């Protein structure tokens, strides 16, 4: 029996390895697990047999090759619920055939081919359920490519390793190469002789049949039909034909293993060194293909078979005796399977390895890959840490709270566009009659106090209109009918009103008590302009002189500013009290310094601009830019000019096409408001600093003489030659912003009042 076994195995080997040596090496990386579960196992197969070398380097190759790979489980359960609790196998085959590497990458779903990787790195779905996964993975071509490259590198490295190890063991060969054909011929002849003898004894007609059946065919060929039917049987019984092969080859290894070594070595050489002469002259693949008229005999063509041949080099057979013992019934004729597609092999291997896996896993504990999976799936290793949180529901904000950070993310609604879209009423909010109003461009007959009282001078009397209550009071009336009032100015605090008259006197009135506090005479001509700076009242006269009055002291006239040659019609202290701007009928704009404490005579002129071509009545300081002064010229000039008082340069200028009688900065929307006389007789709102027109307020039938902003900055009041005062509510703020502003206003008041007393 032993002799027969030896002869058989030797013949088998000769029929496969010697005339037609291995032409392909198949390396498979398989990973499988149940979707939804976190357990993932992986394995490397070399020509269909588990590669279980304990070599550290080989292990590292396995790790490298399977590191980036994914199973459907890794993409989360939610995208493909249909996959849940089914077994998924990912199998990547790397086939080295001659100098070429071939690739297959497949995902099997409960044994059926689910997805395959096309050459262009996209996936092909073979089942309708696979479409979801295909789409998911197709989006991630980069990942697929990296995986492939990794696997390729790993395979090449693995092959090198194998080659090296084989070379190492090569010197152990006992049978020289040249002996093989001789031996084969001898045995072949011997067998023929024996068979002829037997057949002669039994009277058989076909002498060659015995050998043929011995060598090529399994006893029960029908049972081994490796088509779909056989496949299903394999699944059911969890037993396949494959385990027989290793055992059978194991015999070869024991008996004639040296030859197998030899064959493999030369194969590897021929693979990796193409320039080497092919000593045992295997037929080229195309040659063999051409001559493959008889498939069963040209067994070298089947990849499965070639795999078997090279298996003899693997040390696995000796390590898997258990498998063999479990399948004695199928052992008999299972030496060779003529056609075996690789799919079956995958499944077979998978099922086999899976069966044995739990035992290994329990013995060895969680593998490296399992840990890696766990980390990638959970973000941490379950073994290393536990996650704690305080008992109870997660905290959340009180009911009804809406995240208002949306403001931060809104796009396109820049402040500028908000202002443009703001509604500006083209009709006045209110119209007050102003009978007997002097229609004189050079006078300043309107002022609005911080206590929300509008003062207007009508010929020789001053009327107060309480904007909050709507009450009208007559504050004072000049004694002489021929005198008239030329200018009005409230103190910052709003309790005192300075009144300039045509007789050159400046009167100071306590509004609350309706009582004249003092009358200050210093000018020789009418006082057309007044401006307060704390306790200093500056007055501009028709003579061109500007006088500073210290209202606290008896000798009130503390200094005289001489620069203008004609009537001073515009006079404004800057909000910070550092500069006084004056404009005159001589087309000059002058800048004066703060009054020195102790009144050191006449102050020095800081700057004088002569750019305007007309009388400068309109002057306005920018409340949010302390160095910026705006001035507007009369009929012959019609320009708004913006000055930098520090450098003296003109920042910008604009031709308004109309006489400018008043300018005011409206801080709510950072706009500049101008009042116009001839020719438009209207009010214009300009964006600052771009000076683009925002709106026009039309309604006055005569030239607008004065314009003043309400203390809450929401309204402008205009007085015009048509003897009306119109209130335009053009700058109303959102209620929220308004409150903030009001707070600001309150905080700044109070100081002046004290200083006046």
């Amino acid at each position: 029996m032993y002799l027969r076994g030896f002869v058989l195995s030797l013949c088998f080997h000769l029929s496969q390895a010697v005339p037609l040596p291995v032409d392909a090496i198949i390396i498979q990386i398989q990973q499988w697990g149940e979707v939804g579960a976190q357990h993932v196992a992986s394995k490397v197969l070399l020509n269909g047999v588990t590669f279980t070398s304990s070599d550290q380097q080989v292990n590292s190759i396995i790790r490298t090759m399977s590191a980036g790979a994914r199973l459907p489980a890794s993409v989360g359960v939610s995208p493909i619920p249909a996959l849940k609790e089914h077994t998924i196998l990912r199998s990547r085959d790397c086939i080295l055939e001659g100098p070429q590497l071939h690739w297959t990458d497949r995902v099997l779903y409960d044994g059926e081919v689910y997805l395959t990787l096309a050459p262009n790195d996209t996936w092909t779905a073979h089942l309708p359920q696979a479409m979801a996964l295909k789409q998911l993975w197709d989006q991630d071509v980069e990942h697929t490519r990296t995986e492939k490259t990794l696997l390729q590198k790993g395979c090449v490295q693995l092959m090198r390793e194998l080659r090296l190890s084989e070379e190492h063991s090569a010197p152990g060969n006992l049978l020289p190469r040249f002996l093989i054909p001789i031996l084969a011929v001898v045995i072949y002849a011997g067998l023929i002789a024996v068979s002829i003898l037997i057949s002669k004894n039994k009277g058989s007609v076909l002498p060659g049949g015995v050998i043929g059946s011995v060598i090529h065919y399994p006893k029960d060929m029908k049972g081994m039909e490796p088509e779909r039917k056989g496949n299903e049987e394999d699944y059911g019984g969890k037993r396949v034909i494959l385990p027989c092969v290793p055992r059978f080859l194991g015999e070869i290894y024991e008996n004639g293993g040296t030859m197998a070594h030899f064959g493999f070595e030369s194969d590897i050489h021929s693979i990796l060194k193409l320039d080497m002469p092919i000593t045992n002259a295997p037929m080229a693949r195309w040659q063999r293909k051409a001559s493959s008229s008889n498939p069963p005999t040209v067994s070298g063509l089947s990849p499965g078979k070639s795999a078997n041949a090279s298996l003899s080099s693997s040390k696995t057979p000796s390590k898997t005796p258990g498998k063999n013992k479990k399948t004695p019934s199928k052992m008999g004729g299972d030496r060779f399977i003529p056609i075996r597609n690789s799919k079956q092999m995958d499944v077979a291997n998978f099922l086999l390895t899976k069966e044995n896996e739990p035992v290994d896993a329990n013995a060895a504990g969680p593998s490296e890959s399992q840990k890696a999976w766990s980390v990638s799936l959970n973000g941490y290793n379950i073994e290393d840490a536990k996650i704690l949180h305080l008992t109870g529901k997660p905290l959340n904000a009180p009911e009804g709270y809406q995240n208002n950070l949306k403001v931060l993310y809104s796009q396109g609604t820049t402040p500028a566009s908000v202002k443009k879209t703001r509604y500006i009423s083209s009709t006045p909010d209110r119209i007050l009659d102003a009978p007997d109003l002097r229609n004189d461009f050079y006078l300043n007959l309107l002022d609005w106090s911080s206590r929300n009282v509008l003062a207007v001078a009508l010929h020789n009397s001053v009327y107060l209109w309480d904007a909050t209550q709507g009450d009208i009071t007559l504050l004072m009336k000049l004694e002489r009918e021929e005198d008239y009032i030329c200018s009005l100015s409230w103190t910052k605090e709003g309790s005192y009103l300075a009144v300039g008259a045509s007789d050159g006197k400046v009167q100071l009135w306590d509004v609350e008590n309706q009582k004249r506090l003092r009358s200050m005479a210093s000018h020789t001509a009418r006082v057309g302009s007044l401006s307060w700076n704390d306790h200093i009242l500056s007055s501009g006269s028709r003579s061109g002189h500007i006088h500073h009055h210290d209202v606290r002291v008896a000798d009130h006239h503390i200094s005289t500013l001489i620069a203008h040659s004609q009537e001073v019609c515009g006079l404004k202290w800057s909000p910070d009290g550092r500069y006084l701007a004056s404009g005159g009928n001589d087309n000059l704009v002058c800048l004066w310094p703060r009054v020195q404490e102790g009144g050191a005579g006449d102050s020095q002129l800081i700057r004088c601009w002569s750019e305007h071509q007309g009388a400068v009545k309109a002057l306005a300081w920018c409340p949010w830019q302390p160095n910026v002064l705006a001035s507007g010229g009369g009929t012959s000039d019609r320009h708004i000019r913006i000055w930098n008082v520090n450098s003296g340069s003109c920042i910008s200028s604009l031709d308004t096409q109309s006489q400018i009688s008043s300018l005011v900065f409206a801080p709510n929307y950072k706009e500049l408001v101008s009042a116009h006389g001839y020719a438009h007789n209207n009010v214009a709102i300009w964006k600052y600093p771009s000076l683009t027109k925002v709106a026009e307020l039309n309604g006055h039938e005569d030239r607008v003489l004065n314009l003043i902003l309400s203390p809450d900055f929401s309204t402008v009041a205009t007085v015009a030659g048509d003897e009306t005062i119109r209130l335009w509510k053009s700058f109303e703020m959102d209620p929220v912003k308004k409150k903030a502003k009001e707070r600001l206003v309150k905080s700044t008041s109070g100081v002046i009042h004290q200083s006046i007393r």
Partner: protein
Amino acid sequence: MTSTLKGITLKGSAELVAEFFSFGINSILYQRGIYPPETFTRVTQYNMSLQLTTDAKLKTYLTSVVSQLKEWLFDCTVQKLVLVITCLETNEVLERWQFDIECDKSAPDGRASREKSVKTIQDEIRSVIRQITATVTFLPLLETPCAFDLLVYTDKDLVVPEKWEESGPQIIDQSEEVRLRSFTTSIHKVNSMVAYKRTDSV
């Protein structure tokens, strides 16, 4: 401060890190609008003004977490602190602020001090909190009402204290990650990272 001169001990380090978490969590809740801004009050810490909550419920919650965390920091048994922001309606995880804590266990005796001044550490902490503030510019808007939870990753063998329970990691499905600055007290090292749900438009 005498500690400025002497360097830092384990106890001081635990205090500092716990303090950072207290301010950091408050900053996130404020900056991300999880809680209404009017329930926060301004305080000055690390030479910058920060917002601290005045909501009584939230305050007690944070105090209990941070004080427990301090103990764990002192024991060097804590690995991570994660602030998870979930959608209140769907319970979907929208944002995940992860603070990895690396603990130098070689200095647990509490006496040995390291050469790093409190000021330097606070400077580092300040830049981390500044970055948290700056994340508002790129993190997607949390449009739905949100809840938050604090997860603490501890060593496996830790005895779970009363009122605490184990939880899942609450990972975001399909997330973008942004690493923030880290700081170290030379005993504890804290790496910060924020992960947020990838929006469909990207």
